[in-house]
């Protein structure tokens, strides 16, 4: 399957040329002969040789010159210089200029064949290295390689492009921060196979596949850019937890937060208040001005509320024109003050088209024995009371009932 390696024999001695060519053919090579430097260079232009056996003394051009010209045409072609004792110094010099080796005439054929084998092997190794080097080089994803000391030994072009400072920064690069211990445990064989890490960096998210390459005693990281996937995931999470119209938490998310806050209030006996509010006569807004105006009103109201609550408070849409604000660390009296502030903010706000608008508020504070539902129910009852008592007002209900 493997092609025969081509060897160029350059010698002005016709007999020697022929003998050598015959032996090489027997040994499984494909010889091509040239009687002069000119012929040799012309042949090198025609086809690719693994090796050139070059007599140092040629009628037209010097053997070293011939070697140099051939290497200029095909850099991977190896050369072995053959020479008499008189020119040994030149032969030694030739190895300094890229010849694989030299042999003194008369040489042992075994010795020559051994040298040829070594030269062809070297050329094949070089080729293999070039071929294999293209794997990481062409890889569209970044690859990073470290030695045991944490020094970067290789970055493929994709990695250089994406992480320009990485070669200098090494393990202290933001991409690799916090990975030192997993890299170490891979290296010490404590962990087998591949370790996968997800790293957000700047606007992107990367998935790092880290493995220890035993053969080379190196740690290699294959990097995948998973930003798009992550964005889609984040977007889905956002959609799942927020109300699309107003941008505040949706009912499901709010219930989730409320549940955990109720547990906290129970366990640590910290105050917790729940404010339920509702835009007065909202149906009328929709009926009179249409849904677009109605939507705008709901957006404006939630914006007002968000602007007037603490960062620890959680605003949510409960459904329709009903909204919630959860106020952790806030007792009934403070919640009442806070809601009063919200009520005023809404009834003083110059709404577009509708101009004037009010909201009614019902408040309940967590009391011993409460659960999620009893708290919700009281807030709902308080809101109903606020509606009953003429709207645009704040009502509270404690377990003992509404204040007299």
């Amino acid at each position, binding site marked *: 399957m493997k092609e025969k390696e081509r060897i160029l024999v350059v010698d002005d001695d016709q007999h020697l040329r022929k003998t050598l060519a015959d032996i090489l053919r027997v040994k499984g090579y494909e010889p091509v002969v040239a009687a002069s430097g000119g012929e040799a260079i012309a042949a090198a232009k025609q086809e690719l040789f693994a090796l050139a056996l070059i007599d140092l003394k040629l009628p037209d051009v010097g053997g070293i010159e011939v070697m140099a010209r051939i290497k200029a045409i095909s850099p991977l072609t190896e050369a072995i210089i053959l020479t008499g004792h008189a020119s040994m110094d030149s032969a030694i010099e030739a190895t300094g200029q890229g010849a694989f*080796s030299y042999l003194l005439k008369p040489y042992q054929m075994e010795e020559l064949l051994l040298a040829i084998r*070594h030269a062809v092997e070297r050329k094949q190794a070089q080729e*293999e290295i070039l071929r294999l080097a293209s*794997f990481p080089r062409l890889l569209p*994803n970044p690859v990073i390689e470290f030695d045991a000391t944490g020094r970067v030994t290789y970055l493929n072009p994709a990695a250089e492009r994406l992480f320009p400072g990485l070669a200098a920064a090494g393990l202290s690069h933001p991409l690799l921060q916090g990975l030192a211990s997993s890299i170490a445990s891979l290296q010490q064989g404590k962990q087998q196979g591949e370790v996968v890490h997800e790293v957000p960096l700047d606007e992107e998210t990367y998935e790092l596949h880290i493995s220890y*390459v035993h053969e080379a005693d190196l740690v290699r990281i294959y990097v995948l850019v998973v930003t798009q996937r992550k964005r889609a995931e984040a977007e*889905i999470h956002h959609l799942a937890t927020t109300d*699309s119209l107003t941008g505040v938490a949706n009912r499901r998310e709010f219930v989730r937060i409320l549940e955990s806050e109720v547990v906290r209030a129970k366990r640590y006996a910290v105050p917790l208040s729940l404010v339920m509010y509702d835009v007065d006569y*909202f*149906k009328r807004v929709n009926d009179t001005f249409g849904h677009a105006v109605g939507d705008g009103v709901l957006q404006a109201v939630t914006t007002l509320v968000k602007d007037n609550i603490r960062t620890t408070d959680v605003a949510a849409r409960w459904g329709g024109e009903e909204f919630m604000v959860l106020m952790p660390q806030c007792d009934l009296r403070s919640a009442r003050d806070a809601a009063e502030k919200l009520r005023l903010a809404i009834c003083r706000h110059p709404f577009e088209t509708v101009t004037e608008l009010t909201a009614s508020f019902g408040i309940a504070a967590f009391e011993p024995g409460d659960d999620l539902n009893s708290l919700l129910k009281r807030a709902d009852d308080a809101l109903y009371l606020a509606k009953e008592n003429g709207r645009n007002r704040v009502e509270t209900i404690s377990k003992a009932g509404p204040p007299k």
Partner: protein
Amino acid sequence: MKNIPKVLVVDDDANLRKTLSDILRIKGYEVASAGTGTDGIAEAQRTFFNVALIDLKLPDMSGLEVMGRIKLITPLTEAIILTGHGALDTAIEATNKGAYSYLLKPYDIDDLLLHIRHVIELQRSQQEIVRLASFPQVDPNPVIEVDASGEVTYRNPAAELLFPELVQARPGDGVLADIRGALGDGERKRSVREVRVGDATFEQFFYPVPDSDLTRIYMLDITEREKHEARLNRINLLLLTIRKINEYLLVADSQEALYRFVCEALKGLEDIAGVVIGIKLPDYMLKMVAWAGFSDAMVSALDVRGDATAPAGGIMGLAAREGRSIVIADIQNDARFAPLHEMAQEWQLKSAAAVPLVAEGEAIGVLAMYSTQRDAFDQQITSFLADAATDLAIGVRSQRLRSKLEATLGSLRKSLYGTVEAVARMVETRDPYTAGHERRVAQLSSTIGKEMGLRERQIEGLRVTGYLHDIGKIAVPAEILSKPVKLTEIEFAMIRSHSKIGYDILKDMEFPWPVAQAVLQHHERLDGSGYPAALNAGDIILEARVLMVADVVEAMATHRPYRASLGLEAAIGEINSNRGKLYDPDVVDACVRLFAEHRFAFDGVK
């Protein structure tokens, strides 16, 4: 391999050993030396040598044996055999047995250094090859190389694992479908494409491998990414639809319209074959109340019971029974729903979700969706649907409550009015000549209230008060009431007592309005000239101020048996001239406007 290369010299000639070691050290190698084969092997056991220079003739064993033993210990150590001319054949034999090369003594030191250099180079190349070869080996993504004919020349382990059958490019399905264009012939260019293999989607990067006819294909599994993006799209559309439904909840006229709207809206989503809403009846049958995408026949085939006595009630029955969302990812192969298989095949239904309509912890019905795609309802989408179902259930409940509340209020109001009217009629029967007076005062005072912009509740109160304002006349002898001639002072006093008597009758009754007070005050006047208490303006309640005007206008404008009607003009004249003096100016103005603009006429009076 940036380490300093190590050389082991094994020779029994101490001088030669020393000289060689010195030279090699100067050339930058780390050197160890041994005078016997045994010592040499011992050295090799201690540390790895890149090269062992071994004299063929050693006192204890042959150089070949030493080489063999060392290679057993460290296979990557290369040996160079040093020997005299006499042993050339053995030296050549050594190269066949794994020696890198040999040198004949006396050798040129430059030759030796060149050989050592070649060994080190070879080892470095090999190491580099191993390192580089591990790039595709360790790569978690598939890498494939194909030649110009489309034959696979290389697969990395990831590719072998994913595509064990892959041998050759074939047109049609698979990893290497239709890749001819990217291979051989003409200009080979880098290119990218997406390809589906089974359920997965890959991005393929094609690169011509330099100096060869090979094309390398790097593959990236983007299934997750694609899935997420597709899912995001689906969820977006679903949420938009749910929002439309929520908007409609606010304006729906009837439950039926609401159900229909929900079905139509959800049917509009991608790959949805049909949507059905069933409502639980008292006997646990699910009554299909609305649907879209299915024919009536299909829906009646779905009719199921929602109770535990019907285990094969299908997905809707199950959801109704258990009060939780039920999803079938693959209807046609789900053993739980075997009775549905045939139907599902016939109707091209692949997956389904049923979510209960839960209001206040009770499932009042079920919303079911059927898709033409398998696995269309993941957890997220199902929970959105469940949310929508909850919204719908709450909307339905509040609609039911609203109509129930209105019905209750209506009947309450009716019964209250019934009582009030009955009482009013009773009073009237005692004074047939003022028949209808109470009813007309009720009509006028409530209309004035409305004109004044009073709240609905107050207006209701005015109507009731109007009916009852003369209830005290019940205590006045009938012949005085109907006497068509001038009354005596005593008779007048008796008539005047009717407002106080009315108050006494009404004061203990529970009205949501100040009926008794208004009745008591309806003959008071702002300037204190009225009776019974001669109150001043500030003490007379609003209801009484309205009532007195309505009472006066009605009395003057309509016919009395004992006198002809003074007429509307006289009535209006009376209140206008006493506006602010006897009567509340706002009430007078409202009343005058009503008549002036012909927006009021007494019922049954021309």
